[in-house]
């Protein structure tokens, strides 16, 4: 935007003071003004210019000068303060950058160590899973062996009972047969023995044979289990 134009004074340029002239005698008629040179024959009084009055500095000028000085001083102080503060911030920023780089290096190292540790952890987890599976398998194998052992022990116990029962049957049958043979011999020569003794011997043989029958029943019972 431009300023006003035309007849308005330019505020940016101080108006010049009007020219100061000394008073002169009135001009005679026909004279249009002073001539470029004096006419000869009429001496003129010597022209002595009056001394100009002393220029006084206006009050607004003084105020403006003081304000300008104060502003310059203020700007100088503020500028110095800004400069020192900027310097301090630059130093601090450099220190922070150094600290950040240090921590960055530490972070990078830590991340690398973490990655390595994570890898080791994964490997350890895999080993643990394998170990757990193996432990479970071994526990199962041990349990199956225990079951087999228990079953075989039961079978051995059964066979032992059967064998024992068979042995008892065999012994009882042998005793029975022996008694019956002796009883037959006694009966063939019955006149040589008392009848009461023969009857008692017959009862003994029947008891032995009864025991053999019981042993055989026990054996059959054991075999049927």
């Amino acid at each position, binding site marked *: 935007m431009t300023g006003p134009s035309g007849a308005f004074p330019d505020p940016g340029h101080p108006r010049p003071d009007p020219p100061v002239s000394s008073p002169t005698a009135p001009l005679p008629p026909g004279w249009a003004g002073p001539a470029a040179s004096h006419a000869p024959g009429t001496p003129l009084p010597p022209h002595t210019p009056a001394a100009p009055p002393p220029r006084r500095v206006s*009050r607004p000028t003084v105020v403006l000068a*003081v304000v300008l000085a104060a502003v310059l001083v203020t700007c100088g102080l*503020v500028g110095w303060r800004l400069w020192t503060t900027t310097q301090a*911030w630059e130093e601090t920023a450099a220190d922070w950058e150094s600290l950040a780089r240090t921590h960055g290096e530490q972070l990078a190292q830590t991340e690398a160590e973490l990655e390595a540790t994570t890898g080791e952890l994964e490997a350890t987890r895999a080993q643990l899973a394998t170990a757990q599976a193996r432990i479970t398998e071994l526990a199962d194998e041990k349990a199956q062996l*225990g079951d087999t052992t228990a079953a075989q022990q039961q079978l051995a116990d059964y066979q032992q009972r059967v064998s024992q029962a068979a042995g008892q049957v065999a012994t009882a049958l042998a005793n029975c047969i022996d008694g019956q043979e002796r009883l037959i011999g006694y009966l063939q020569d019955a006149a040589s023995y008392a009848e009461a003794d023969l009857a008692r011997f017959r009862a003994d043989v029947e008891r032995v044979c009864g025991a053999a029958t019981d042993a055989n029943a026990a054996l059959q019972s054991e075999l049927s289990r």
Partner: protein
Amino acid sequence: MRSARTVATVALLGLVTACAYLPDPPAPVPTSVVPSVAPVPTAAADGSQLSPDGFDAAQRMAVRIRNIGCGALSTGSGFALDEHTLVTNRHVVADSAELQLSTYDGRDVAAEAASTAGLADLAVVRTVDALPAAPVLADTDPQVGDPVTVVGYPLGRQLTVTDGRVVGAVTDPLHANLGEVLVTDAPVEPGSSGSAALDAEGRVIGVVYAKNADDMSFLVPVSTLRAMLGDDTAFAPAPTCG
């Protein structure tokens, strides 16, 4: 002159005011910005519980039971109730001449005495050696649709963990338990009897005791287990064949 002084004063005040609005010099840079107390990272939310050997609590509490009877041999499952007590089914320990126990890692645990409940297919076995771990009993029975995890030894083989859901509650079809029993679709096999049935938090919600032809498993609910454990007269010495 007075106005000049005033102007100077104003300028000085302006300077002071301007300086007040200027940024302060920076604070000294610390030697380290690493916090002395680092926040503790939270544990991974995979539900795994730390243990001395990596096995979780559900596996560590499981016990394999070998019932050596008179001319018969059978196996079943059980779980620790405390350090020297385990819970299983009555039919797992009945008519035994000897009970042999082993843990998840194959260690043998000597059994001391077994007691069976009269009104439920439950039994408790006292052990001489300490059991590895014991679970927590749930406060209430599960609802239909709740997840269930069964930990046991199906067919007397490896320790197995199977999952399913509670299907419903019915009157015991085997008439071995007083009151209702739970039905789940968690797969079980002979040998799983006495297995602990766990909820999502690892608490015991029942004891497996049977299955049907439709592969549905039956549980003695934890409420019945609590009632039996709370009754001093509920358990009697287990019958033996010896």
